[in-house]
């Protein structure tokens, strides 16, 4: 499966890189290899581990169609919980990465994710590269 980097992912990486949410080593040794697993989706045991991969749900608890979250725990010096929203279609679309803060912020993030998924379905998005 191709892994597409959208402008939403790029912008969130920019924000996190500048805020030093994660180190270069964490990115290269942990985050990037995990994201690359999407190339073989769903054929990796990590995709059945709900601490790593789960279906996204909206503010009412309903499943978000085609929407998933990749999760990392205790990332960076701030030991934060990092999330990456991913749209799974015939290709995997990296949407927005964010630090999980609280329930309200999470619900807002999921609302944004719904918009991104709709934009992908409508073929109205910016592709900033493919992960290889």
């Amino acid at each position, binding site marked *: 499966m191709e892994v597409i980097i959208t402008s939403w992912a790029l912008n969130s990486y920019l924000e996190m*890189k*500048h805020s030093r949410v994660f180190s270069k080593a964490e990115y290269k040794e942990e985050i990037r290899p995990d994201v690359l697993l999407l190339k073989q989706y769903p054929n990796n045991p990590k995709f059945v581990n709900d601490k790593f991969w789960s279906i996204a749900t909206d503010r009412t608890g309903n499943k978000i169609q085609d929407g998933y979250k990749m999760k990392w725990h205790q990332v960076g010096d701030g030991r934060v919980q990092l999330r990456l929203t991913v749209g799974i279609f015939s290709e995997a679309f990296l949407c927005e990465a964010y630090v999980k803060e609280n329930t309200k912020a999470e*619900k*807002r993030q999921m609302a*944004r994710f719904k918009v991104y998924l709709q*934009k992908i379905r409508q073929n109205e998005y910016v592709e900033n590269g493919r992960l290889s």
Partner: protein
Amino acid sequence: MTTQTLTAHKNVELIEIGHQMNKVGLSEDFVSSAVRVAFEYEGVYDLMKMWSEETDEEEKNEIVADIQDMIDECLQKEKVEGTYIRFDDLEQIANHIRIFKDNLRIIVEKNGGLKKLTVLTGIPQPSLSRFFSSNTIPRRVTLLKIARALNLSQIQIATEWTR
């Protein structure tokens, strides 16, 4: 792909929330765009509902900034192949964007600050605050609104990194 169709009940709800937003001082420009986009995008409808049910002012402001982000996102009407950026270049780009936004902020402050800019552009203040504090690539549409409002030249808003 057909666009999300909301029920008539949801449409009425959105119009009511729009009225509430206008009553608390959000610009007609923002409110009408928010309602229009929420008719089509369930994610924006969700944000409007969260705004109407929220009591904490800080959280309401974050929701407003999210709605403005999504209004801008929805201007994208085709697939575009953007610039490919290597991970190792991200920090340099983020620094470049930071300097650009800091310089623009100085100009804004000399022209009455964010509050005045909100009035002149119709962009909600929480959204402008997020624009200046974040390191994300600025949207051309936002830069043009700021330039028009403050009578800035194209050179003053020129940056290598826009979307």
